[in-house]
């Protein structure tokens, strides 16, 4: 059964490798972005009442920098997803119909491609980047010493929550992709999706900084599990019980969103307006 999806798994892996130059440029862009944030946080902690030793909303300066670095790496490895664009292209070219008659599910195809991309990225970039980041950060004393064997439990939960994050991202991309049936174009929906995720997942700013009410609501939403929770698990800021709870919430959301997406897709297909005839 799973064999049918193998070509797509491969395609996802190939796309990821295709442009070495892009990856270099991405690294440059990212270093600039991270540097900008580091200077901002430096100014913030310097300006705080307690100076550089301040702990703001549970984060010391060093933890904050670690958080910024690790969310960036996490985003690069995990959110490598073109599901929304592919659906948009299929809609514009009117090729969605072709998939409805093939013996593979439209949803399954994208999930396989995304997983292929996640596996390649993790193997090729994720492992060295995480290892380097963790070693450097704990070497500088930005992170507590990697206390074994407790670290392995966190690492395992981190990988699990990373997988959940990738699946959540793919599912949400798919839902927004299906919404393209209604707007006929993907530009707007894509930027809406990106904005939502970067703000609500804690990528832009840890959710601890948000007002209490909003924070409570967000802790039960699927977004925190897409960036903040995995990174805090890896940083061992969460104990095992909290970590398990996060993974459970993510898993529950994957199931719920998949069901929602299924319903949405069959509704959308019924009103397919093929473009271009």
């Amino acid at each position, binding site marked *: 059964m799973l064999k049918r999806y193998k070509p797509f798994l491969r395609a996802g892996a190939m796309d990821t490798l295709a442009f070495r130059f*892009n990856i270099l440029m991405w690294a440059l862009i990212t270093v600039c972005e991270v540097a900008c944030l580091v200077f901002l946080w430096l*100014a913030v902690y310097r*300006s705080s009442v307690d100076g550089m030793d301040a702990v703001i909303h549970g984060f010391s300066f060093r933890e904050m920098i670690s958080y910024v670095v690790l969310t960036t790496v996490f985003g690069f490895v995990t959110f490598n997803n073109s599901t929304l664009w592919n659906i948009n292209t299929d809609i514009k070219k009117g090729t969605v119909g072709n998939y409805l008659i093939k013996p593979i599910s439209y949803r399954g195809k994208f999930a396989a491609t995304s997983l292929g991309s996640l596996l390649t990225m993790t193997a090729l970039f994720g492992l060295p980047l995480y290892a380097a980041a963790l070693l450097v950060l704990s070497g500088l004393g930005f992170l507590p010493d990697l206390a074994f064997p407790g670290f392995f439990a966190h690492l395992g939960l981190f990988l699990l929550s990373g997988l959940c994050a990738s699946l959540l991202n793919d599912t949400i991309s798919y839902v927004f992709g299906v919404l393209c049936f209604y*707007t006929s174009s993907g530009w707007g929906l894509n*930027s809406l999706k990106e904005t939502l995720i970067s703000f609500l997942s804690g990528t*832009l700013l840890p959710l601890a*900084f948000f007002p209490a009410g909003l924070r409570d609501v967000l802790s039960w939403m699927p977004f925190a599990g897409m960036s903040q929770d995995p990174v805090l698990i890896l940083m061992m800021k969460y104990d095992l019980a909290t970590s398990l709870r996060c993974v459970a919430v993510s898993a529950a959301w994957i199931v719920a969103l998949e069901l929602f997406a299924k319903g949405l897709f069959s509704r959308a297909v019924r009103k397919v307006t093929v473009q271009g005839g």
Partner: protein
Amino acid sequence: MRYVHLYFTCIRRSILSRLEYKKDTIVALSSFFFSNLCSLAALYFILQAIPALAGYSLPEVGFFYGFSMLPIALDHLFSDEFWLVAYRRVQEGDMDMFFLRPVPVMFQVFAETFQPEGFGELIVGVALISVCASQLTVTVSIGAVAVLCVGAVFGAVIITSLKVAMSALAFIFKRSGPLLQVVYNFSAYAKYPLAIYPAFLRALLIFVLPFGLFISLPVDTLLTGSHDPWLLSLAIIGCAAVFFALAVWVWTRCERRYESTGS
């Protein structure tokens, strides 16, 4: 005169295309709006935790942030097609039509897209400036207002020039989108007061990629009277003239290298 008329004809066409996807345009406009609100909210949440940022109060930081949106928004309105040139059109050989017409290619790229999303940024920026300004206690001189206007308008010229020059490199390397992105993203640095950066970065942001020159320095001039507004205006206009001339030069040189795809 001919080109003014032609420009409006093309822009009318661009807006018509956009209106074909009304729902998407509405979603795009609101998501842009929303995205700006999110960044602002994040900044607000951070500043809640501290008394002031490097000596700047909350409304002052907000003013920087809001003002930085103006030149970016103006650039966004008129030159969005260059992103596509840098990322896709040259690589896919999709510039052929521009080269088959008896009108300069750069003009056609400008005229291909008018991006109404820029208005969203403009509105948020002006609103933020207004709110923050009402909470400030500074004496506003004519010179300060003048240098802010110059910074917004000629700053847009500088951003557009950088965009033109960077996307022109696609004619040589087939794809220059990421490079354009690197340069363009430095505008993010100018959202905050220059005081939070180390000296070399400040120098970079004033003399090399001059986002600081036309965003941070004019705002500093308003808040603290740090610079002579008329001299600063002159510097910004001169800088814009140099950047624009360089951009046109780079573009015309690179444009000759364009080749369609083989088959």
